[in-house]
């Protein structure tokens, strides 16, 4: 989850998010190097004691500062396209879950076998127990088997919403009348938080998402108990 004074991404909980973090680090390193170079050049130009500063042209440096940026751009573009296509690969999900956005809560439907559906409301600040996270916890979590390809179909029942879980590298708009597909594999067990990411009215900030990844047997036990409850 996010923590105070955080500078970077949350730890990755899916292979796709790991790749996104690596790409980001690679690109940011290039950005830092270029910025450092430019800063150096600026300070050098401003503090020089040389008097002949107004040379008008030079073929060699023009070639260098054309070719080098082109190479740098290619070094950014190739990993970028690689991850773009990687994220678009055809997957073979083991499980389909529907995440429906409402004003102002999410509801989850697991209908591959039985009709399991439940609402997921934010736990109000005054009802939190010690150790729980303000504005992030929900009464029911979207429980998912770990290391299994999961398909999530995101839609909305009223206005636009967006289903996002940063640790998984997932964000998908919830559009009424449309079924948007996203997929992920959660690499490790844990609890992953997200928040609604499309303005949807007064309580847009108070309809979080909680995904809980557990071993398959735990998931089966959980879904049986949820069906019994209902």
């Amino acid at each position: 989850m996010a923590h105070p004074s955080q500078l970077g991404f949350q730890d990755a909980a899916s292979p796709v998010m790991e790749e996104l973090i690596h790409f980001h680090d690679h690109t940011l390193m290039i950005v830092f190097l270029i910025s450092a170079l430019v800063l150096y050049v600026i300070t050098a130009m401003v503090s020089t004691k040389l008097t002949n500063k107004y040379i008008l042209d030079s073929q060699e440096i023009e070639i260098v500062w054309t070719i080098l940026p082109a190479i740098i751009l290619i070094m950014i573009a190739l990993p970028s396209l690689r991850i773009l296509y990687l994220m678009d690969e055809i997957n073979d999900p083991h499980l389909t879950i529907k995440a429906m956005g409402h004003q102002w809560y999410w509801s989850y439907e697991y209908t591959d076998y039985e009709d399991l559906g439940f609402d997921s409301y934010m736990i109000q600040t005054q009802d939190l127990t010690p150790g729980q996270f303000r504005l992030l916890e929900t009464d029911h979590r979207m429980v998912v088997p770990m290391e299994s390809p999961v398909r999530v179909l995101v839609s909305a029942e009223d206005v636009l919403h967006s289903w996002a879980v940063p640790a998984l590298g997932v964000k998908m708009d919830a559009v009424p009348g449309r079924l948007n597909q996203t997929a992920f594999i959660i690499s490790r067990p844990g609890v992953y938080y997200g928040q609604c990411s499309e303005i949807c009215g007064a309580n847009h900030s108070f309809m979080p998402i909680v995904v809980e990844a557990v071993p398959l047997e735990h998931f089966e036990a959980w879904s049986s108990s949820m069906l019994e409850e209902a």
Partner: protein
Amino acid sequence: MMAEDIQAKLKNYKTAPFDARFPNQNQTRNCFQNYLDFHRCTKVLTAKGADTTPCEWFRRVYKSLCPISWINKWNDQLEEGTFPGKI
């Protein structure tokens, strides 16, 4: 031969598999098409007096993909005779 195939497919059903007709992000039509196909299949097979087991596949797929509220709405529309699709 066909009947055993469909039984095997239904028994091993986990969730709606990848459908090459709907390869992209927008799966709305995938859900709707399977709903239509189930009802069309049922209508045709019951008219012939045949076993409707093959239609089960479409039912499993649309149940996996379609939001419950959409299914309920369409079922109500079918009952009322206001369903917009051609069955």
